[in-house]
């Protein structure tokens, strides 16, 4: 059994419950134990690159420290939470002045300097479970289904900090789809922005961005788009061009735990 601390994030408690439920069910089916942190707060959704913004990062630091104390890596499944947790952790690891400032705010006996390993669930599947083992656990292969992975920004950038995958030619979701028996459809827009949070202020702009992405996936003959981000999913779905689901839903379907997750 592989054991991890788990940070669901606020959107997975509300509008993206299925992203969470399918992640937990699939993890369990693959022998991965996700232990939810006893306490966690919203990560803030976006990371600030400014060097003098410690206060907005404290919620992330608390989660990172809790995982360190539990002696496990910290796993999350929302792209935005992943981006924030990983970037804050990197900042603490590489910037002693920032780590000292944070220690002061949180009244820590010694500064936390980024010891926790932050992982997206996709990294756990790829690097710890292994896609071969995922393939072996598939009960209902997604044969003949043409599915376009959509990464967006938050899983990939900044590439140097996250080191999740090659930001210009990512392979992780494609390899997962292949392991599930589906045919990955690679599109040019898979790592371009969906319009993100600007939808709040200007829905038509976000609509144009997302439409370019969905149209390109449809042009390449995809029947479905997958993502790990609730906001990407929201923006892409609004285009009405093709259905958009979380990667965890497809995973749960292929592993034969989808029904159980819905009622769990």
């Amino acid at each position, binding site marked *: 059994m592989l054991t991890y601390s788990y940070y669901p994030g606020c959107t997975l408690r509300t509008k993206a419950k299925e992203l969470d439920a399918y992640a937990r069910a699939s993890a369990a089916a693959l022998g991965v134990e996700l232990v939810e942190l006893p306490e966690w707060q919203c990560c803030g*959704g976006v990371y*600030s690159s400014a060097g003098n913004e410690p206060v907005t990062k404290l919620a992330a630091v608390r989660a990172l420290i809790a995982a360190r104390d539990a002696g496990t890596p910290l796993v999350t499944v929302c792209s935005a939470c992943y981006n924030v947790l990983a970037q804050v952790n990197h900042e603490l690891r590489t910037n002693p002045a920032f780590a000292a400032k944070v220690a002061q705010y949180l009244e820590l006996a010694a500064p936390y300097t980024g010891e926790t390993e932050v992982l997206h669930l996709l990294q756990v599947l790829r690097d710890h479970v292994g896609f071969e083992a995922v393939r072996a656990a598939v009960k209902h292969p997604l044969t003949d289904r043409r599915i376009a992975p959509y990464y967006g920004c938050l899983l*990939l*950038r900044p590439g140097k900090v996250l080191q999740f995958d090659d930001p210009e030619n990512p392979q992780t979701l494609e390899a997962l789809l292949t392991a599930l028996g589906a045919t990955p459809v690679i599109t040019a827009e898979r790592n371009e*922005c969906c319009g993100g949070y600007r939808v709040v202020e200007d829905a038509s702009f976000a609509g144009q961005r997302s439409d370019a992405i969905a149209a390109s996936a449809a042009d390449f003959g995809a029947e479905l788009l997958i993502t790990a981000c609730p906001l990407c999913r*929201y923006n892409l779905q609004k285009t009405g061009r093709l259905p958009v689901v979380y990667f965890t839903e497809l995973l749960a379907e292929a592993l034969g735990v989808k029904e159980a997750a819905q009622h769990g």
Partner: protein
Amino acid sequence: MADTTEILRMSGVDPRKCMRCGKCTATCPSYNEMDIPPHRFVYLVEQGRVETLLSCRTIWKCLSCFACVERCPRGVEPAKLIEALRLTKLRPQGGDHLQPAQLADIEDDDLPQQALVSALRKFSK
């Protein structure tokens, strides 16, 4: 008001590394909406034109998608300069670009919390 030195310190960016190739602007999904596109933004910081940048539209149009950061051949990281200017604009009293009350008007039950918290972080103090 912040001066250029403060912007450089906040962002950790050295605009003098820029060779004005325009690649950041070419890859920016929002450049059409901006009055000052990313490559020019970098140049204006180098020129110390902080006042101009504090009142430009670009700081609200940037998506923080980091495409410019990833693809700049000189590692200039234009989005970090935009973030520093946006924060400098937001921090003083009355600097908010978006009021929480405006969000209450959005009637869309599907909109994820993530969108609201992110927009508030980027557009208000």
